[in-house]
């Protein structure tokens, strides 16, 4: 069955949809967690520490966190690989363009590929910045995420990279969530409006919720 999935364009699209939905669910939780930054260093750092102790005593320190990380890495790799292979196939299937050009699909639909690439680059930067601290501005302090976040968003480029990526995320989810419903066969004529609305609401909430953090730092509400 695994082979049938990966060998078929419809199956590969299923892999893309499932991995996309996994990332999407994670992002909802991530966004809610991030908003704790508005309740001060104590609560935010406590939350970050709790992430490492989830599931204790059954799970050892950081086991749950690593489990989530592994699932996410598999999802990102599966998503990006299927997106790349399917895109290659699509471009090959339509090599010559029409002479008469006309405006095509919506902005969100047209930007799925480049938007996806932006998101992929963002994920790398984001991990190097706030997880490992490799490219962090100012001294990265392990175990002090509140201060690290404030430092990142005190630089203009930190704000720009983050906000651009979150706008790209909103567009990606707008088309992606509805697409995933079609790919997984849960869309229907009667559900179409509800699914499109849900896609827009999710896109808006995620983008606004994530951007609220740098905005908080920029306006001095979070410092």
């Amino acid at each position, binding site marked *: *069955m695994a082979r*049938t*999935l990966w*060998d*078929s*364009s*419809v*199956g*590969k*699209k*299923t892999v893309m949809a499932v991995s996309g939905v996994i990332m999407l669910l994670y992002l909802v939780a991530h966004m809610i967690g991030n908003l704790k930054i508005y309740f001060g260093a104590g609560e935010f750092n406590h939350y970050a520490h709790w992430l490492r102790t989830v599931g204790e005593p059954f799970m050892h320190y950081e086991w749950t966190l690593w489990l989530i990380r592994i699932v996410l890495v598999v999802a990102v790799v599966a998503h990006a690989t299927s997106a790349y292979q*399917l895109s290659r*196939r*699509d*471009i*090959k*299937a*339509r*090599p*010559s*363009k*029409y*002479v*008469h*050009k*006309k405006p*095509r*699909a919506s902005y969100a*639909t047209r930007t*799925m590929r480049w938007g996806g690439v932006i998101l992929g680059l963002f994920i790398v930067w984001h991990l190097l910045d706030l997880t490992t601290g490799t490219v962090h501005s100012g001294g990265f302090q392990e175990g002090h995420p509140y201060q690290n976040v404030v430092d990142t968003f005190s630089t203009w480029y930190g704000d720009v990279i983050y906000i651009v990526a979150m706008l790209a995320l909103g567009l990606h989810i707008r*088309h992606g969530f*509805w*697409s995933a*419903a*079609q*790919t*997984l*066969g*849960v*869309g*229907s*004529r009667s559900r*179409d409006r509800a699914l499109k609305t849900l896609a827009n609401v999710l896109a808006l909430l995620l983008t606004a919720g994530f951007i609220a953090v740098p905005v908080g730092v920029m306006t001095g509400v979070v410092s």
Partner: protein
Amino acid sequence: MKLTLRVWRQKNADAEGAMSTYEVDDISPDMSFLEMLDVLNEQLILSGEEPVAFDHDCREGICGACSLVINGDAHGPERTTTCQLHMRSFRDGDTIDIEPWRASAFPVIKDLVVDRSAFDRIIQAGGYVTAPTGSAPEAHATPVPKADADFAFEHAECIGCGACVAACPNGAAMLFTSAKVNHLNVLPQGAPERETRVLDMVAQMDAEGFGGCTLTGECATACPKGIPLVSITSMNKEWLRATRKAGKR
């Protein structure tokens, strides 16, 4: 009406093609688009030039042979087949661009004629039902619920023209294939091959070099028979169901 036509001319499959410009005059708004091209061709023949090759057969919107991309739209500006498009949809003095279907699975044979036999091979892969030959069966022997009959009929309307492929930015044949799969998969007559049909037709579609679906929706906008985009969703559902069943066996 006086019109300027820019038409794709290509000697054969291997030749380089290019747009050529022609003028036609005295076109009646009541002419069909193909009759307008007939006028152009008569003019070309009289002046000793090679007439423009284009596909057509029934000229009444039911066979699926006609296939032109007119001003960037498959089958032109109205939601109908090229043969049912009339010159009243254009204005005197217009310049009209006429191109063939574009997709690597639909190679150009000559001018505006493309090879659509990839569709025939998708049909051969599963677009049939196993039926005993001989005398016609009793019509009421197999009851079909009204909703299923309507669903099947809506999809049976597909005439296999390929406008969906021509309009799709990925050259995908998902709308065509979904119309054929859904038409037969919902009916009791199609039940014995319900799983193999969708798996084999999708596999053939891939093998022919069509692209994949990015849910752009251009196909459903171009389809002269109004096959809806959600047909692709229904086919995906059938495909996933068949894959799960195949995995259990």
